[in-house]
């Protein structure tokens, strides 16, 4: 009979105390995970997190107390763990995992990496580092009551990027500026307004009526009427919103009148928009106080104005959902706009959820997922990859009574643009309108997950388009791709040396991209709308409420624990169907060993609200 050390076989127990593991993230999942690792017998643990502790973390990140608010999560987590396990060897880094110090050599120090992240960018990055270092990676995520764990091993399983994942949906400019139909449109508008007035102005965040709206069907005869309607306070079209606001001294009455009266009246002149929609109703300053607490917008404007003045010349405020005046302002502005467009208004609580992309989170979900991570970790240390599983945590048991659903891991996608032997991708864009900077920032970094790309044109001369060395190719930034002879069918070689990743980018020139769309990655999943704030089981909670890797406490961030695609799926799939571009989920063939009957499958579909159909794995 086997020798046991506690509940484990001796050989396993021994390898636990000698191996080194890396935990990326010390938040909801991370705290639970660190605790589980040391109690299970892991001795050498390194943990990294760029974030600091916030009071809203305390309902679940149990290694932190109120007195720790503001301190480094990684550091405090380490200290708390050492208190109940002083013999553990823990190294904490208050840093971003995307820092080039954490190169392939760094990753090679570990036998296992476990992610406890909340954003796509970092997940993509760690995925690539682990592929490059050939170290197994355990990936996980939670949102509300739902969670998921999976194992990634180069050459044996899918990598994190093998299946395209939907990106956070952005709304078309004309919806935000002209024809909002849901509270979220008004909230996005209010956030844009905040930035236009007090923060960093962004050409993609216009708040004034959009005359280029294709629905408007511009009629030259109307031009004069429009021009007059918009000219109340100087020519709005020529002056930036911030400059104009400054010129009025951020006068709340003038601001209010422009945004909620004059601009609305202007929209009304675009009568084609209102043929099938309820027309907006301009507000009057005298009515404002009938709108309850949102009428106090003038106070918030004054507070923000003071903050701006305090900061000095050329200052900018940064949007932060946890900064009360900023949140108050957005709540008021959004609600006034909802009022204009005849929508039911929303409480500050609800606006904060939507504006801040807050994902509700509790301790128990994270506890379960972190337990599953360690169980998978034990298998990977034994190299029992055929025993490893993707496990889904549902809110309610499925028709086969399973609350925790293990599924077999899928083999790598031979066409994966990351882990294939010669990764390739095709991008559609307009070579005359895309500048090099956009290629670097929006396409290679944001979309394709590179951190520090180097790009050459495959033109026989190896012309260098982008260098990761700062300043080297700065002169190219504002030039158009076509200026370099790039045209339809051109190919670029993009390298990220940190990630040890080379990607061949095929370019297709197109002049027919949708409005507001700068580029398209061919074979991509469509954009997903942000999930409504009532998480239901089986619902596909977006893969990124957070696409960027900024810490939660910074303004640019969205929020909290991210989740992988949560499928309410069944037990072992022996094959994966191809992902069609129309579906945002992977489709699986079901082999129900127990009952194999269609009736139980149909029953499950019926349990979901109709709208969820596109979110459920299609059961054929």
């Amino acid at each position, binding site marked *: 009979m086997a020798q*046991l050390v506690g509940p484990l076989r001796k050989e396993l127990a021994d390898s636990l105390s000698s191996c080194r593991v890396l935990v990326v993230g010390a938040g909801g999942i991370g705290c639970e995970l660190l605790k589980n690792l040391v109690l299970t017998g892991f001795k050498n643990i390194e943990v990294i997190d760029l974030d600091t502790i916030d009071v809203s973390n305390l*309902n679940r990140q149990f290694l932190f107390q109120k007195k720790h608010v503001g301190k480094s999560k990684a550091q405090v987590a380490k200290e708390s763990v050492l208190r109940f396990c002083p013999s553990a060897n823990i190294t904490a880094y208050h840093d971003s995992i995307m820092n080039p110090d954490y190169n392939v050599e760094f990753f090679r120090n570990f036998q296992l990496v476990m992610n406890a992240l909340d954003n796509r960018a970092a997940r993509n990055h760690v995925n690539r580092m682990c592929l490059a270092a050939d170290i197994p990676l355990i990936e996980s995520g939670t949102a509300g009551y739902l969670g998921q764990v999976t194992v990634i091993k180069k050459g044996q399983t899918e990598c994190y990027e093998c299946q395209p994942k939907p990106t956070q949906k952005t709304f078309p400019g004309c919806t935000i500026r002209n024809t909002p139909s849901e509270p979220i449109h008004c909230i996005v508008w209010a956030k844009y307004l905040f930035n236009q007035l007090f923060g960093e102005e962004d050409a993609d965040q216009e708040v004034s009526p959009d005359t280029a709206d294709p629905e408007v069907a511009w009629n030259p005869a109307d031009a004069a009427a429009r021009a007059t309607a918009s000219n109340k306070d100087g020519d709005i079209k020529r002056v930036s919103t911030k400059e104009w606001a400054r010129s009025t001294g951020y006068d709340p009455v003038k601001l209010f009148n422009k945004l909620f009266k004059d601009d609305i009246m202007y929209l009304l002149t675009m009568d084609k928009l209102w043929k099938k929609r309820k027309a907006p109703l301009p507000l009057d300053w005298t009515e404002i106080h009938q709108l309850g607490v949102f009428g106090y917008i003038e106070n918030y404007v004054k507070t923000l104005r003071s903050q701006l003045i305090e900061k000095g010349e050329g200052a900018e405020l940064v949007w932060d959902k946890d900064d009360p005046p900023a949140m108050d302002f957005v709540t008021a502005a959004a609600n006034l706009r909802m009022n204009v467009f005849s929508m039911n208004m929303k*409480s500050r*609580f609800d606006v904060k959820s939507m504006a801040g992309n807050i994902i509700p989170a*509790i301790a128990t979900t994270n506890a379960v997922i972190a337990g599953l991570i360690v169980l998978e970790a034990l298998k990977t240390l034994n190299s029992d990859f055929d025993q490893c599983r993707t496990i889904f945590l549902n809110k309610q048991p499925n028709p086969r*009574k399973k609350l925790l659903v293990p599924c077999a891991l899928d083999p790598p996608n031979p066409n994966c643009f990351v882990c294939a032997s010669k990764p390739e991708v095709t991008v559609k864009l307009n070579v005359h309108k895309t500048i090099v900077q956009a290629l670097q920032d929006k396409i290679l970094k944001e979309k394709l997950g590179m951190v520090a790309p180097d790009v050459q044109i495959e033109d026989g001369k190896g012309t260098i388009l982008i260098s990761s060395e700062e300043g080297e190719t700065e002169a190219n930034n504002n030039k158009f791709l076509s200026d370099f002879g790039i045209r339809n069918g051109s190919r670029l070689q993009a390298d990220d040396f940190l990630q040890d990743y080379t990607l061949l980018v095929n370019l297709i020139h197109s002049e027919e991209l949708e409005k507001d769309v700068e580029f398209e990655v061919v074979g991509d999943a469509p954009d997903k709308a942000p999930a409504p704030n*009532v998480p239901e089981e089986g619902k596909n909670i977006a893969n990124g409420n957070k696409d960027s890797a900024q810490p939660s406490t910074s303004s640019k961030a969205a929020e909290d624990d991210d989740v992988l695609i949560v499928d309410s799926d069944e037990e072992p799939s022996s094959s994966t169907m191809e992902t069609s571009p129309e579906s945002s989920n992977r489709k699986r063939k079901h082999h129900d060993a127990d009952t194999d009957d269609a009736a139980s499958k149909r029953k499950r579909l019926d349990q979901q609200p109709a709208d969820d159909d596109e979110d459920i794995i299609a059961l054929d």
Partner: protein
Amino acid sequence: MIDTIEKEENLISEEEAAQYDRQIRLWGLDAQKRLRGSRVLLVGLRGLGAEVAKNLILAGVKGLTLLDHEQVTEKSRRAQFLIPVDADGQNQAQASLERAQLLNPMVEVKADIDAVESKLDDFFFQFDAVCLTRCSKDLMVRVDQLCASRNIKVFCGDVYGYHGYMFSDLGQEHHYVEEKPKVVKGSNEANDGPEAKKPKVDPNETTMVKKTVSFCSLKAALEVDWTNEKAKNSLKRIPVDYFLLQVLLKFRTDKGRDPQPDSFAEDSQLLLQIRDDVLETMGLSSELLPNTFVSYCFSEMAPVCAVVGGVLGQEIVKALSQRDAPHRNFFFFDGLKGSGVVDYFGSK
């Protein structure tokens, strides 16, 4: 501007609103208030107990009493994260108290060093929910019976190596609410095709639906008759863990302890013997529970405690807050397979 939802009835402090924000956004303010008024008894502070304690304290119950008569040993201390390293020899509940309290100062956490067997009936009546770990079958049956009469929610749970279970008895009539998306009457526009047939669901509006469900006693759940035809036919879809639980509970009753790694050989033999006896008494074949089980049910696996403690903790939260459908009435977790199953045993 303060969030009006919270200030309306002045029933939740700013501190609570800030700390519980992320969970209030999940289960709502009403549920949080009910939690805030609930008192819970937790028996047994080993690996599983500590997990449940953590989860309930973080959730924000009114009070949690930690009851454990045993003393801290090096082994028991290493099984959980609440006991300080210098506490060997102290009472387990007492030693866990300080760190438990620090998890959330807004909860009243108490320690009780008595043996649960010595407690009189009315001791239990001061609680809204009782959670029993590491208890004998007889004790659990007794407590379940006396709590049923008082509408006190009863929970049992244990972890044995890679396996764990949770049982709940929420009484004959447990009322709860579920939040469902509001279905809106279809519009007048001419909609062709499949869209017209679907009721329009407004993703932003929801409605609360009231439901009621009943639970049987632990006694009934453990004394299912397997000799009749219907029961025999259902065996194929029954989680084998149910029978494993019966074996382990019998071991605990007979030996006064759980299987120990130190006496692995002797305990394994006994486990196999008990398996044969238990299944035979039920009129079932020994093959139902293959011999391999003995290798994986010794001691408490920390990650298994985390999983079972998470599910159990959430069930207690659900029952106290009366929100969302409770799992009925057993949850079994197999840490080797990673599968977690909910199933009902007992009189329907």
